[in-house]
C-alpha cells in the first residue's frame, strides 16, 4: 500500500515541470558546491603545506647567529586546511590560518582569508555545507509544501480517504516519496564526497576520516528527514499550498537569516566583546607588575638575580657560570605567558558565552543547530581553531625553552642547533572530541527531531475532509 502511494507521488512529482526545474537547479548547485569545496580544499591545503615547509627550512638554515636573535627570526605554524573543509569550511575564512612561532613574543593567528575576498564573499561560500544548511531545506519545503494540500485543493482527498489506505499509510507514502527524492541527493553527495576524499588522502588518513564523514552524513540525513517531516506535516495541517508555502518559507527565512543575525547582535550586547585596547591595557599592566601584583619587572629581575646568584653560590653576576640574560628571558617568558594565557582565556570564555547564546536560539531554528553541528564535525569551528592556537602557542614556548637553555651556555647558534628545533604539525582532534563539542547542537537537533515526530503524529490525526 505504501509502495503504491510512493510510486504515485513520485510519478506526480516527476511529471510536474516546476519540480523538474527545481531538481535541475539543485543538482547543478550540488555539483558546483562539490567542485567549489574540492577546489578550495586542494588549493589551500597544498599552499599551507608548502608555506610551512618553506618558512621552517629558512629557519633551520639561517646560519650562525646569536641564539636570541636567531630565535626571533621565527617561522610560521600553519593551520592545515581542515580535513573535511571541502564539505564545510565553517569559520576558517574568518579565523586566519597562520601563527608566527617567535620565541619571547606571543603569537596571534594572522592571514584571514576573508581579508583578501571581495564583498561577494559576504553572501557565503557555496560548498556542500552551505547547500545543506541553506539551500536544501528550501528545496525540501518547495517539494513538500503542497504534498498534502494539493489533495484538498484538487478534491482528491475524498477518493483517497474512502480507499482502504489508513491515514498513517497515506502519510508514510507521501513522506517516503519526498524522502526518496531528498535522500537520493544525499547519497550522491556522500558518494561524491567519499571519492574526492579518497583521492586526496592516503589510505591511513582516509580511514581516520571515515568516522567523522559517517557522522556528518548521518547528521545530514537525519536533519533532512526532520525538515521533510516538518514540511509534510505543515502541508497537511494547513490544507492550503499558499498558506503552507508562506509558513514554511517564513520559517526558513527567519531560521536561516534573521534569527542568527538577531541572536548574534543580542549576544554581543549581553556579553560585550573585549576590545583590543582593553586587552592591550590589561596585559601591559599585568606584564609589568605580574598577575598577583608581585612587583614591577625591575624589582622581579633583581629578585631573580639574587636567587640565581644564591643558587650558584656567587656574589657577583660576572661570576655566574651561565648567562643571566637567557634566564631572565625564560623567567619573563613564563610570567608573561601566564598573563597572556589568562587574557586569551577571558577572550575565549567571552566568545564561548556569545556562541552559547547564539546556539541557544537554535531551539527556534534547526538550521542554526545543524550549522553548528556541521562546523564541529568538520572541525572548522571556533573550538578547533582555539585548539590549534593553544597547541601552536605551546610549540612556540617549547622553542623558547630550547633556545633559552642553549643560550645560557652558548652565544652563537649554528644550523646544527637550529635543526634541533622541531617542526610544528597540527592535526584536528578525532571524532570523539568533535562529538563532545557538538553535544549542545546534537541535543537541540534531537529536540527538533522529537518535535517533528510529534508534529507528524498530530497532523496525521487531522487528515479529514
Amino acid at each position, binding site marked *: 500500500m505504501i509502495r503504491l502511494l510512493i510510486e504515485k507521488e513520485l*510519478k506526480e512529482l516527476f511529471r510536474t515541470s516546476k519540480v523538474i526545474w527545481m531538481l535541475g537547479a539543485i543538482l547543478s548547485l550540488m555539483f558546483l558546491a562539490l567542485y567549489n569545496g574540492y577546489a578550495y580544499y586542494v588549493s589551500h591545503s597544498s599552499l599551507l603545506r608548502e608555506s610551512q615547509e618553506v618558512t621552517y627550512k629558512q629557519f633551520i638554515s639561517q646560519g650562525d647567529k646569536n641564539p636570541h636573535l636567531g630565535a626571533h627570526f621565527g617561522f610560521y605554524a600553519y593551520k592545515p586546511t581542515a580535513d573535511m573543509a571541502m564539505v564545510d569550511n565553517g569559520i576558517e575564512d574568518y579565523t586566519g590560518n597562520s601563527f608566527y612561532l617567535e620565541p619571547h613574543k606571543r603569537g596571534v593567528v594572522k592571514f584571514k582569508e576573508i581579508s583578501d575576498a571581495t564583498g561577494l564573499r559576504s553572501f557565503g561560500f557555496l560548498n556542500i555545507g552551505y547547500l545543506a544548511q541553506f539551500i536544501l531545506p528550501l528545496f525540501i519545503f518547495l517539494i513538500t509544501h503542497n504534498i498534502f494540500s494539493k489533495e484538498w485543493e*484538487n478534491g482528491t482527498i475524498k*477518493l483517497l480517504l474512502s480507499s*482502504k489506505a489508513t491515514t498513517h499509510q497515506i502519510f508514510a507514502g507521501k513522506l517516503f516519496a519526498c524522502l526518496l527524492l531528498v535522500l537520493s541527493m544525499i547519497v550522491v553527495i556522500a558518494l561524491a564526497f567519499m571519492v574526492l576524499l579518497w583521492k586526496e588522502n592516503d589510505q591511513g588518513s582516509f580511514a581516520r576520516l571515515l568516522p567523522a564523514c559517517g557522522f556528518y552524513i548521518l547528521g545530514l540525513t537525519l536533519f533532512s528527514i526532520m525538515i521533510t517531516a516538518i514540511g509534510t506535516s505543515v502541508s497537511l495541517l494547513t490544507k492550503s499550498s499558499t498558506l503552507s508555502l508562506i509558513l514554511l518559507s517564513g520559517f526558513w527565512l527567519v531560521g536561516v537569516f534573521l534569527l542568527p543575525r538577531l541572536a548574534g547582535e543580542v549576544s554581543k550586547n549581553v556579553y560585550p566583546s573585549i576590545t583590543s585596547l582593553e586587552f592591550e591595557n590589561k596585559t601591559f599592566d599585568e606584564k609589568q607588575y605580574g598577575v598577583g601584583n608581585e612587583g614591577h619587572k625591575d624589582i622581579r629581575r633583581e629578585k631573580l638575580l639574587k636567587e640565581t646568584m644564591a643558587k650558584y653560590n656567587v656574589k657577583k653576576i660576572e661570576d655566574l657560570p651561565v648567562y643571566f640574560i637567557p634566564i631572565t628571558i625564560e623567567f619573563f617568558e613564563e610570567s608573561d605567558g601566564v598573563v597572556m594565557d589568562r587574557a586569551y582565556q577571558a577572550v575565549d570564555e567571552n566568545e564561548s558565552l556569545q556562541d552559547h547564546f547564539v546556539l541557544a536560539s537554535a531551539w527556534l531554528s534547526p538550521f542554526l543547530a545543524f550549522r553548528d553541528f556541521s562546523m564541529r564535525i568538520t572541525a572548522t569551528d571556533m573550538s578547533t581553531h582555539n585548539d590549534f592556537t593553544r597547541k601552536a602557542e605551546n610549540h612556540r614556548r617549547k622553542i623558547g625553552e630550547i633556545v633559552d637553555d642553549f643560550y645560557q651556555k652558548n652565544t652563537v647558534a649554528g644550523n646544527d642547533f637550529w635543526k634541533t628545533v622541531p617542526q610544528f604539525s597540527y592535526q584536528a582532534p578525532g571524532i570523539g572530541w568533535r562529538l563532545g563539542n557538538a553535544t549542545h547542537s546534537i541535543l537541540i537537533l534531537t529536540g527538533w527531531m522529537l518535535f517533528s515526530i510529534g508534529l507528524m503524529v498530530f497532523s496525521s490525526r487531522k487528515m479529514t475532509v
Partner: protein
Amino acid sequence: MLKAENLTKQFGTHTALDNLNLEIKKGDIYCLLGSNGAGKSTTINIFLGFIPASSGRALIDGNEVTVNNHATRDLVAYIPEVVNLYGTLTGMENLEFFSGLSGYNYSKTELIQFMETAGLQRSAIDKRVSSYSKGMRQKVGIAVALVKKAKALFLDEPTSGLDPHASNEFSQIITHLSEQGVSTLMATHDLLMAKNLGNRIGIMHQGSLKHDLLSQEVSHTDLTRLYIDIVKQNV
C-alpha cells in the same frame, strides 16, 4: 445494508442532520432529494467516515462506521459531483492506483475491461486525466467503484453537469450494479433521475427526512409537488 439510527450532526449551533433514521437494503437505490443544506451530503460524509456524527449511529453491513472505519471503507465506493483525479496521471494509472489502494491487483487487461464497462473509450485510457472532460472523469470514478467491488455506493450529485447521453449511461451502470446486489445512496437535485433510477426516494429538509417513498408508488408529478412544498417551507 446501510442503516442510520438517530443520526445527528451539529456544526456549532447549526444542526445539519437531525435524528435521521434510514435503512437501505441490499440492491436498493435510494435517492435523497433536497435543497442545498438539507443534509444529503452530510449523511453521505458520515457514512463514508469523513466526518463523525454528533450522536446516533451509521452502520454499513452491521459495522458501525466510527467504530470500525477500516472495515467499512472496504465495503464502500464514492463518486462525488466532480470526480477529481490526479491530473498528471493517465486514466489507467489513476485506476491502477485506486484499485491498488483497495487491495486489488488487477492485470492491465482487467483494468481496461473495467474502464470499458464504465463507458470510457479505449483511446482515452492512456491519456492524462488533465485532458479529460467532466463526463470522462465521472466514468473513471465509476471504474474506481467497479474495481473496488463495493457493496455500497455513495453518489453525491453524480450526474450534475453530464450530458443526457452520459447521464443515461451512468444510470444504466448503477442499475446493473443494483441487480448485482450493490446498495446505492445517491444525493441529487434531479427529480426525474430519482424517479427513474431509484427504487426508493427520500426528501430531506433542514436535516430531517420529511418523506420516505417507494418510487413505484409515487408519480413524477406527485414527487415534484411534494418536493416543491418542502422547498417552499424554506422561502
